[in-house]
């Protein structure tokens, strides 16, 4: 059962995989060998019985196709949140809180210092920088799946109608989003540019490409990085960003704590990040909370 298509959740090589149709499409785009995997798709709200357990997927608001898994067995319900966020995202339906007995929550940004500001405010920072440095290229580091498409949609909402240039590694998933009905406007591959000096342009690329030789083609680039980690200066500086933009697809502290209230689970298992603070907070609310350590999970760079 795969909650969403990010590389630390979806892996190639399964014999069988159950996920939303969008997540399966993402996996087919990303992985070779998917024809060998038995794929079972389950739309949001549909349910399927596996053995004695009723399985249902519900929107997680994280990226296109992202889902929580609700597992019901003999009147008891466990919900696995997967990665989620609570604020609106133009590329996917919003998170739906499901009342449950056990809630397994992610905790990527589970510290009170993480409070993501309004995403349109951050996009405003980017556009203001473009206006201040019109002769420079703004290189915006984004994760290829989800963040990239959300940032494009946010730029469109802020009135940026010009062509948005993309690093080659972002093309395939943007194409997939377009096929899934997400309108990204005028986007193009950087390598396809002929008469373009990229002055005043916005170029999206994976964060690692900013300091890569690839970036030398641009005019005195302004490196920007979109991530929830940009909230903390030391982390932002480490990323090499001159323009850190706090745009995250994960719940911040307020969203995490609000979600514990909304689902009302008496038992909470915390995983994927800073368990300690959220466990402490949940216990102070009288919830039976503990850290759940998953093997093989690395900190997500987005």
């Amino acid at each position, binding site marked *: 059962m795969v909650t969403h298509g990010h590389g630390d959740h979806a892996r190639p090589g399964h014999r069988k995989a159950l996920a939303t149709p969008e997540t399966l499409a993402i996996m087919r785009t990303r992985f070779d060998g998917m024809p060998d995997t038995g794929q079972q798709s389950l739309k949001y709200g549909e349910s399927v019985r596996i053995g004695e357990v009723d399985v249902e997927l519900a929107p997680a608001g994280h990226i296109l196709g992202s889902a929580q898994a609700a597992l019901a067995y003999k009147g008891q319900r466990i919900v696995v949140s997967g990665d989620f966020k609570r604020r609106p995202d133009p590329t996917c339906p919003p998170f739906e809180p499901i009342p449950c007995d056990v809630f397994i929550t992610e905790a990527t940004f589970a510290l009170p210092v993480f*409070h993501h500001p309004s995403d349109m405010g951050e996009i405003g920072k980017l556009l203001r920088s473009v206006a201040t440095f019109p002769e420079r290229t703004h290189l915006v580091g984004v994760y290829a799946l989800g963040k990239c498409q959300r940032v494009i949609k946010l730029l469109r909402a802020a009135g940026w109608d010009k062509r948005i240039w993309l690093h080659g590694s972002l093309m395939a998933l943007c194409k997939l989003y377009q096929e899934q009905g997400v309108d990204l406007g005028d986007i193009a591959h950087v390598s396809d540019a002929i008469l373009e000096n990229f002055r005043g342009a916005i170029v999206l690329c994976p964060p690692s490409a900013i300091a890569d030789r690839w970036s030398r083609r641009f005019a005195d680039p302004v490196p920007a990085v979109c991530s929830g980690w940009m*909230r903390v200066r030391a982390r932002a500086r480490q990323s090499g960003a001159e*323009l850190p933009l706090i745009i995250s697809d994960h719940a911040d502290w307020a969203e995490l704590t609000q979600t514990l209230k909304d689902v009302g689970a008496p038992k909470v298992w915390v995983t994927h990040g800073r368990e300690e603070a959220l466990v*402490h907070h949940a216990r*102070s609310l009288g919830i039976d909370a503990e850290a759940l350590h998953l093997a093989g999970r690395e900190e997500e760079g987005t």
Partner: protein
Amino acid sequence: MQAFATLLDALSYQPARNAKLRLIETYLRETPDPDRGWALAALTSGLDFPAAKPALLRGFGEDKIGPELFHLSYDYVGDLAETLSLIWETDPNAGPPPTLGEVVDTLQTATKMQTPAILKRWLDSLDATGRWALLKLLTGALRVGVSARLAKQAVANIGNQPVDAVEEIWHGLSPPYRPLFDWLLHDAPRPSTNAGGAFLPPMLANPIERAELEALEPAHFRAEWKWDGIRVQIAASGGVKRMYSRAGEDVSGAFPDIIEAIDFEGVFDGELLVRREETVAPFNDLQQRLNRKAVTPKMLKEHPAHVRLYDVLWLEGEDLRALSFDQRRARLEAWNAQKPRPRFDVSPLVIFTDWAHLAQLREQMTSDGIEGLMLKRGDGAYLAGRPKGPWFKWKRDPMLVDCVLMYAQRGHGKRSSFYSDFTFGCWREAAGQRELAPVGKAYFGFTDEELRWLDKWVRDHTTNRFGPVREVAPELVLEIAFDGIARSIRHKSGLAMRFPRINRIRTDKPAAEADTIDNLLRLLGPSGLENPAESAYVTAP
């Protein structure tokens, strides 16, 4: 306050000088008085508040989210002011955020008892960046990589004036600098320059090499030693006594021994040194006295400061800058002869017949207290800035050593895709093994073309990665030039080079033949081997 916070935030991430200037200029143009003036004061360290104590901030944080969560947060962020700014939440009912002017006015009049409540109200009304900027302002250190000089350059730029025109009147102005902005932006008259103790922009020299000297007439030039200290200006008038760095920073506070010894009126150009009896101490000793907020009596006693005068710009109410060097020199010597002053003396002229003779004198000068020679035209006026022609510096030849490249790191800004910061080492014996010990780091000295070559070499010879740092195979020899070397407890090899740069890429030399640590130790000389603090150099007669 919010606009100022946005500026500080952008500056803190911006490595490039020109981009920093653009950000400050945009802010100064768009922000009304008096806020922009207060901002300028903050950037030039001209604001003086009773500082907020860390305990107060910690208390705020613990009250807000409980000690446990605050501790976890602080532990993760690592900076108290930043942690507090991040965990605090904006209260939509707190009213409008304060302006910078309001913050300054309020804090200058508020009592200690009132401050916490006022501060809480402000924290409620600002966003996270605003809170961070406010707390940085209150705890004293902005640390956004902007020098006072750069801020003044930005101010000068908005009025299309040279920075020296701002520098000359700067010390007669006080925040929020309304007359300055009126002059630069609204055609008001330039504020007057005759305030007591004003800084006068200094005259600077261009470097010159031996071969280039042949084009010059020796009889036109006077020579003096270039002392290895810090170029300063002593400015005393109307009862105000100050010492400035070359960039116009007021450094009086760190050198009360000099300031107290000023019993004259005038503006002098000279070199700040640590001097014990007749000997000038190494630059290292002077460094001990720099960047210190408080000077201890022990420091004053063991590292006594001294100013060796080169020139006089004003004397007893008279501006001498239009006079020739020879005329100013005569005035300086006559003034000095009237009364001996233990903290001040006049740098002697070096008498020479022709360039060959001077070259010989330069060769013979082995004192470490001297960086080289200055050449000044006898008929030249004292001109601000770095005019071409009248003044030259003829530095001593740098020391050279062959090192092996060990690590490389990518640079910033335009160099962010290039491995351009290089750590290099020399050989030493350890437990019977020959190993490389890092001796320094350099990020200039090479051409753009060499940088491209080095970048590729690093990528092709990487053996290990530690985050942003690449370790490379110990195969490439770099000839490193540097101006001095001293013992240092802060460096792993126990040595610190002064001003190291990459002089040449020695692809012709096998790495095994690079220099050893012992070779470097020998450069310290016999006195340097024992204890740097006690090493002393004999000054030139």
